[in-house]
């Protein structure tokens, strides 16, 4: 059970140059239900492409995407999808932004609002629920974007470099915070990142990808039990050893 990609291939054709770019070539990948898996790989290797295929924004040339045994390739609305940009709508207040998913799914508005308010409270965003995105800091907007993703109500989340645009300190803060949220919700998560510490801190499994066409170079099981203590974990010799190996694979 869970999410599995079987023989997934995707090329982009460039009409002007009349050539095609093979991004994914028969990729296999498994994410167990309730686990936190990170994909890490060089820029431009096709990580976002994998996300877009899962999210139903792109259609694979061949291969299957199975979610709990059901083929879902080419369909959308199966995952909570969070891209790197927060993409909060500037004309909506924070609370109306996080409720977009409920609106699209025609869920009952009153109930959704009550639920959203509880979550805003947990995310430390209650005082800002009536603020517009431009009035919020980068970290707050990113938390808002994650809340929008969670409130879409799917048990699997696709996070495509969610903290990539934040400054280093805010990013660390957000990683710790995501860890604490995940401890409570235990979503199945596929996280795309280029931050080695982030991958080790959050994941049960780290998958290292190659240059295009993307293959899996290596998989690391990260054996630390949950809940994790970020400071202790990242400075432990086991974590440092993972870090060394990952660096070696990514910067040969």
């Amino acid at each position, binding site marked *: 059970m869970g999410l599995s990609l079987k023989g997934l291939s995707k090329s982009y054709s460039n009409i002007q140059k009349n050539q095609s770019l093979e991004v994914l070539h028969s990729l296999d990948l498994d994410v167990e239900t309730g686990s936190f898996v990170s994909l890490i790989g060089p820029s431009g290797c096709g990580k976002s492409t994998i996300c877009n295929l899962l999210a139903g*924004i792109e259609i694979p040339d061949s291969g299957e995407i199975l979610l709990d045994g059901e083929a879902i390739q080419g369909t959308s609305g199966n*995952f909570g999808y969070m*891209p790197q*940009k927060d993409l909060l*709508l500037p*004309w*909506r207040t924070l609370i109306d932004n996080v409720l977009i998913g409920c609106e*699209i*799914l025609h869920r009952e508005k009153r109930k959704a609002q009550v639920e959203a308010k509880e979550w805003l409270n947990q995310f430390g965003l209650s005082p800002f629920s009536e603020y517009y995105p431009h009035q919020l800091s980068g970290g707050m907007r990113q938390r808002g974007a994650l809340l929008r993703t969670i409130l879409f109500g799917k048990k699997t989340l696709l996070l495509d470099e969610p903290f990539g645009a934040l400054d280093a300190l805010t990013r660390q803060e957000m990683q710790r915070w995501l860890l604490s949220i995940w401890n409570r919700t235990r979503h199945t998560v596929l996280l795309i990142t280029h931050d080695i510490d982030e991958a080790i801190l959050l994941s049960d499994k780290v998958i290292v990808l190659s240059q295009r066409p993307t293959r899996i170079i290596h998989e690391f099981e990260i054996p630390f039990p949950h809940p994790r203590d970020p400071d202790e974990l990242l400075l432990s010799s086991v974590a440092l050893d993972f870090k060394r190996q990952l660096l070696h694979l990514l910067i040969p």
Partner: protein
Amino acid sequence: MVITSAQVPLWLLPTPTHILKAFWETRQLIWMHTLTTLMETTMGFALAVIFSLITSGVMVLSPWLKRLLYPFLIISQTVPLIAVAPLLILWLGYGLLPKIIIVVIVCYFPVTISLIEGLELSDPDLLNLLRSMGASRWQMFYIVRWPHALPSLFAGLKIAATYSVMGAVIAEWLGSSAGLGVYLTRSSHSFLTDRVFAAIFTITALSFLYYALITILTRLALPWMHNKKRDSLE
């Protein structure tokens, strides 16, 4: 003062007092003509906006129809108004209808162009996010495209509002029985230059009024653009 002391004849350049006097003496006449112009501009403006909404909506939702209709949009702007207006007056008479049509032609272009530009997002990521949630075309339209288009729509409305008065006055000037354009030509033909100035001021005031109205509407419709309560943050 400069005018009186420089001995310029009054029919060439009247003094401000003369203009005010002309304004006061013909106030009822001006008011009557203003009402006609107001009627033409408001009707024409409203019709142009309605047409714009329909056609831009259709063009954005269907690229095929856009390819079909876009040339007509350009043509509506390249046809010389000064040549079309007399024809319309010839066919439709001295009444309101030809003026309203001219105002529609003048306003339609800026509103439609800015609306289409706003509806076609430059950033596809927003639409992709909604697509990932399984949103329908219609949902993408009213959740993302429409609100995204509002600032640019209002910018177009501001341009159209000022054009509309000008369009109406020119149309009246080419043949009409009432309206500020008529007052203007009659006054100028009789060398009543003080009245010409009174007309110019009225026309300017009318354009300004429209502009102010649209500005107020913009503030009401786009609260997020004016809400700057950042102080408590960061």
